[in-house]
């Protein structure tokens, strides 16, 4: 270790303590949500049961009855999975093409793709509603949600895949070409196995973003394709009546995603800054 690391008392003793306090503070609201989810609705608002109470699983067992949780959860799973699959199947060929067969315009195309991500969603809200409701007749369908989720994440997917693919030596791909492998074969048998880690973390991050999306999924659905975002938003103002059950359904909605998120912390930086911070 270099001499810069830890030679003062502060470093040795206070740094870990302070870091742990900060981390616990940041995690506290999530902890509190999980904690409250084991209280009955009545206990959840009684100060005398703030810390000590009789834990119950009822809130989880009654989730279907109270909120029809699984219908929304299944919608979230379906739309996020298919949107991710679609984004990858459009994004992998595109990123392959830009990484290994770049033209003079490739850089501009990449930057332009990012710029689509920066269009404020609200600005095109009405045209989207109008088109999908009156014209295409796909309002509130899984199909629409999948397409929209795919499109809003496509720039990030392509960008991330592009940075991963670029690290693969061009010669390996070229060698495949010499051996008479088709373009499809190059992608399937050479590129994807080589960049497997990158593809997987791109997929994971795309899935997380799809799952958490809260503008289009709320505004372009009513019942049939409504996701968990819509469920939670629809139950936003319980005025203290249902803290217990609301905590349970919230925990169920974010728990799996937080755990998935822990696995792609590193890729998150790249995905969100478009490779601008390394």
């Amino acid at each position, binding site marked *: 270790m*270099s*001499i*810069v*690391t*830890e030679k*003062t008392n502060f470093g040795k003793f206070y*740094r870990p303590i302070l*870091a*742990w306090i*900060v*981390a*616990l503070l*940041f*995690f506290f609201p*999530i902890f*509190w*949500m999980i904690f409250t989810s084991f209280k009955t609705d009545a206990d959840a608002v009684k100060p005398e049961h703030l810390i000590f109470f009789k834990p119950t699983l009822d809130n989880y067992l009654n989730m279907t009855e109270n909120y029809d949780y699984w219908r929304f959860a299944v919608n979230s799973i379906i739309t996020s999975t298919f949107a991710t699959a679609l984004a990858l199947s*459009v*994004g992998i*060929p*595109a990123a392959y*093409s*830009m990484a290994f*067969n770049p*033209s003079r315009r490739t850089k501009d*195309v990449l*930057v332009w*793709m*990012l710029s689509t991500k*920066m*269009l*404020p*969603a*609200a*600005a095109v*809200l*009405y*045209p989207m509603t109008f088109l999908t409701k009156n014209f295409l007749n796909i309002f509130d369908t899984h199909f629409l949600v999948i397409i929209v989720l795919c499109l809003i994440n*496509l720039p990030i997917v*392509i960008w991330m895949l592009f940075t991963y693919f670029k690290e693969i030596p061009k010669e390996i791909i070229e060698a495949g*070409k010499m051996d008479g492998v088709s373009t499809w074969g190059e992608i399937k048998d050479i590129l994807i196995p080589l960049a497997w880690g990158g593809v997987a973390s791109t997929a994971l991050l795309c899935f997380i973003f799809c799952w*958490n999306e*809260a*503008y289009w999924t709320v505004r372009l659905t009513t019942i049939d394709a409504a996701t968990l*975002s819509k469920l*939670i938003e629809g139950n*936003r*103002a319980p005025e203290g009546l249902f*803290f217990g059950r609301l905590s349970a359904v*919230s925990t169920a*909605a*974010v728990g799996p995603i937080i755990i998935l*998120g822990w696995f792609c*912390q590193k890729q*998150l930086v790249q995905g*969100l*800054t478009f490779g*601008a*911070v*390394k």
Partner: protein
Amino acid sequence: MSTRTLPRLLQAPAVLLLLVWMLVPLSMTLYFSFIRYVLNSLRRPEWTSPSFSNWRGFGNYNYVLDAKDFWFAVQNSVFIVGGILFFTVILGLSIAVLINKTFPGRGIVRVLLISPFFVMPAVSGVLWINMMLDPVLGLNGIAVEGINNIINDLKALPVLGSFFSLWPDLTPLSFRATQTSAYAVIIMVTWQWTPFAVLIFMTSLQSEDQQQKEAAVLDGATAWAQFRYMTLPHLARPIAIVVMIQSIFHLSLYAEIEIVSRGNGNKNLPYLIGEFANNNIGAASATGIFAVILANIIAIFLLRMVGKNLVE
């Protein structure tokens, strides 16, 4: 077909999809912003469907610029984004510097710290406004009540009681009120996005020149001087990127605003667009174009930086 044609064509689906996704709705917004288009009008039924014969020129833009709500929404957007940026950058920098060295349990600290970022905005909003910030039933209310109880106990003390009797009863701040709901949004979004800033600053700190730092230590530079003259300049670029990315994301905040107060006294531009879109599509579209312009001003700088990086 040349050997390069097919590989190059493979990007066509992605380009076409994004082109349609961007151009079709945006040109419709542009078109609607220049015509009279309202969903419910008994007096002028011809305005209820889009048509070039309802051309209004810049009328919608003037209407929006004159609307009191518009300027309030712009101010409030800037206030919310500015507040979030201020806190996330300061907190992000301090936490990144704090955990940039090895210590026991650093991995777990990182995992705990990053977690809020993966909470969906709807849950974050519901969790904060109800269980954390509610002035009666949330921890906010319970904590203030607890403090009041302690003060009341102190007032009952024999001698010191007369001193404590001067202390007022505290009232918890309600974050659903007109003036305070923007604070609630700032608090919850800061909580969610500080981890993002921490991650980026940490990634960047790891690429800092350690030899230079060692040299500075040997020369007797204080910790503050090292931070001020070496670390901070090194972080200038990541800070700029954090600021720009967050501005773009937070200018379109919606779920949190809806959940905290249904925009009551706390509108931002996307919320105002949503309100206009209930009836006056022309005005909603004109507001949308303003939002696009605002986002583009920031996006141009960001894209330039990102593009430059691509060449390196």
